[in-house]
C-alpha cells in the first residue's frame, strides 16, 4: 500500500520508519499505564535512536569511501560511547566507565583484530564497520546486564561477602559466587539467541543479505559467523569486566566499598 503512495525508495523508508515508531510509542503508553516510570526514557530513546541511526547512515555514505584507518577510528569511538552507556547501568559501581571501555576493548576489540587478521572479517569498510559495531553493541548490552546483576547480587549478599572477609577470605573468594551469577545472567540471552538461530528468528545480517539478493545458504553461514562472534566477544567482555569490577569493589585494605 505504502509503495504505491511513495514511489521514491528513500521517502518510502522514512514513512516506514514513521509507522514503526508509532507502534513503539504504543509501548510507551502501555508503560505509562503500568506505572513503570520508563515511558519518558522509551520516548527519548526512540527519538534519539531514529536521529542517531539516520545520521549514521548519512555519515556512512561518506565514510565508506575512506581508508581502513577510518574504520578503526569509528569503532574506537563506538567503544567509547558503548562504555559510557554500559556504565550508566552500573548504579554506582566504582569506575564503571573505564572498566567497560577496557573490557570491550579487550574482549571484542581483540576478537575483531584476530578475525580481521584471519580474514573472517573483511577489511572493506562496508563490512568491517557494521560487523564490528554489532560486536561492540552486543558486548555493551552484556556488560550492562552483568553490572546490573552484579550490583543486585552485592546488595543482596553484602552480609555473606563481609562474613567471608571476616573469616580471612580474599576479596576474590568473597565476591566470586556473585561474579559467577552475574556472568551467567549476562550470557543466557546470548546462548539463547544462538540456540534459536534460524528457528525462532532470522537475524539482521541474514535478512540484509537476503534482501540484497545473496544465496540463502551463504547468508546463513555468514549469519552464524556473526552470532558466534557476538557470543564469543560478549562472553570475553563480560568476564573481563566482571573480574576488573570484582576487584574494584574492595579497598586496598580488603573492605567492601558499596555500603
Amino acid at each position: 500500500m505504502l509503495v504505491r503512495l511513495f514511489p521514491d525508495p528513500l521517502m518510502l523508508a522514512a514513512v516506514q520508519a514513521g509507522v514503526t515508531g508509532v507502534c513503539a510509542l504504543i509501548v510507551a503508553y502501555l508503560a505509562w499505564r503500568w506505572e513503570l516510570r520508563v515511558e519518558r526514557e522509551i520516548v527519548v530513546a526512540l527519538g534519539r535512536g531514529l536521529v542517531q541511526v539516520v545520521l549514521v547512515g548519512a555519515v556512512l555514505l561518506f565514510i565508506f569511501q575512506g581508508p581502513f584507518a577510518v574504520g578503526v577510528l569509528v569503532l574506537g569511538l563506538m567503544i567509547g560511547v558503548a562504555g559510557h552507556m554500559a556504565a550508566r547501568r552500573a548504579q554506582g559501581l566504582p569506575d564503571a566507565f573505564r572498566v567497560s571501555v577496557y573490557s570491550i576493548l579487550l574482549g571484542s576489540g581483540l576478537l575483531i583484530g584476530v578475525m580481521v587478521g584471519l580474514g573472517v572479517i573483511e577489511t572493506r569498510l562496508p563490512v568491517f564497520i557494521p560487523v564490528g559495531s554489532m560486536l561492540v553493541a552486543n558486548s555493551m548490552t552484556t556488560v550492562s546486564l552483568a553490572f546490573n546483576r552484579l550490583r543486585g547480587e552485592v546488595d543482596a549478599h553484602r552480609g555473606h561477602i563481609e562474613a567471608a572477609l571476616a573469616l580471612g577470605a580474599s576479596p576474590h573468594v568473597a565476591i566470586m559466587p556473585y561474579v559467577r551469577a552475574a556472568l551467567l545472567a549476562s550470557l543466557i540471552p546470548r546462548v539463547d539467541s544462538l540456540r534459536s538461530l534460524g528457528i525462532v528468528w532470522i537475524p539482521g545480517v541474514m535478512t540484509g543479505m537476503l534482501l540484497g539478493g545473496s544465496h540463502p545458504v551463504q547468508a546463513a553461514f555468514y549469519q552464524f559467523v556473526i552470532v558466534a562472534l557476538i557470543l564469543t566477544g560478549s562472553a570475553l567482555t563480560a568476564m573481563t569486566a566482571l573480574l576488573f569490577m570484582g576487584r574494584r569493589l574492595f579497598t586496598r585494605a580488603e573492605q567492601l566499598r558499596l555500603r
Partner: protein
Amino acid sequence: MVDTEGCVPLLRAVELSRVVDGKALVQGATFTLYPREVLAVVGPSGSGKTSLLRLLNRLDEPTSGTVYLNGVDYRTISPRELRRRVGLVMQVPYLFPGTVADNVRFGPRQAGIILSDKAVEALLARVGLPGYGDRDVTHLSGGEAQRVALARALANRPQVLLLDEPTSALDEEAKAGIEALLQDLLASGEFAAVLVTHDLAQAARLAQRVLVMEAGRIVRSGPVKEVLRAGSAFP
C-alpha cells in the same frame, strides 16, 4: 607494651574515629582489651556500637586512630591475617550455601588448612551441634545457624572474638541457649571477646567490663557492676 596494671593488653584501640559523609559514626574511641577478658559495648541503637566493632577487624577503615594487636599497629598486618586473629560473629549468621561442615572449614581453608572430619566434629560438639556436619545449612533453625556461625569463627582459632548482637535476631528460647553457650566458650579463656549488645542484663551476665556509647563516643567505662549500677541513660 605493658600498661599500668602490669598486664599486657591484647588489643588496644587508640583515638579510633570513623566519619562517613560528614557524620561521625565513631569518635575518638580509646580502650584496651586484656587477654581472656570479655568487654561489653552497650548503648542506644545508632550510638555507634556496631560501627566501632567493624573497625576492630578493619572491615571498615578508621578515618583516624588505629588499633594495636599484641602491641602491633594493625595497619601493618595483612587484613586476612588480622581477620583470622580477630574473628567476628554477626547478628545474622550469613552461612554460605552447602553443608555445616563446609561452613566450618571455610576459614581455615583460606589459610590453606583443611580441617579433618574429627576437627570439624570437635568444633561442632563445642557449640552443641554434634553430628551436624553433613546437614545442609538451609535446614537449620535460627539458633542452630548462629551456633554454626560461632563454630565457623572459632575454627580460625581467633585471639579475639567480636560478637555483634549475637542473640538479638533469635527467639527467647534460642537466645537463652546461645547465651549459655557463649558463657561456656568465654569461660574457657581461649580468646578475649568484645560483645556488642543492647541488652544490659546480658552484658552484666557475660562481661567483666563495659563501655557505654552515645552518639559515637564512649561516655562511660569500667567494671560492669559499677557502670551498670550507676544507672543507664538509655532505654
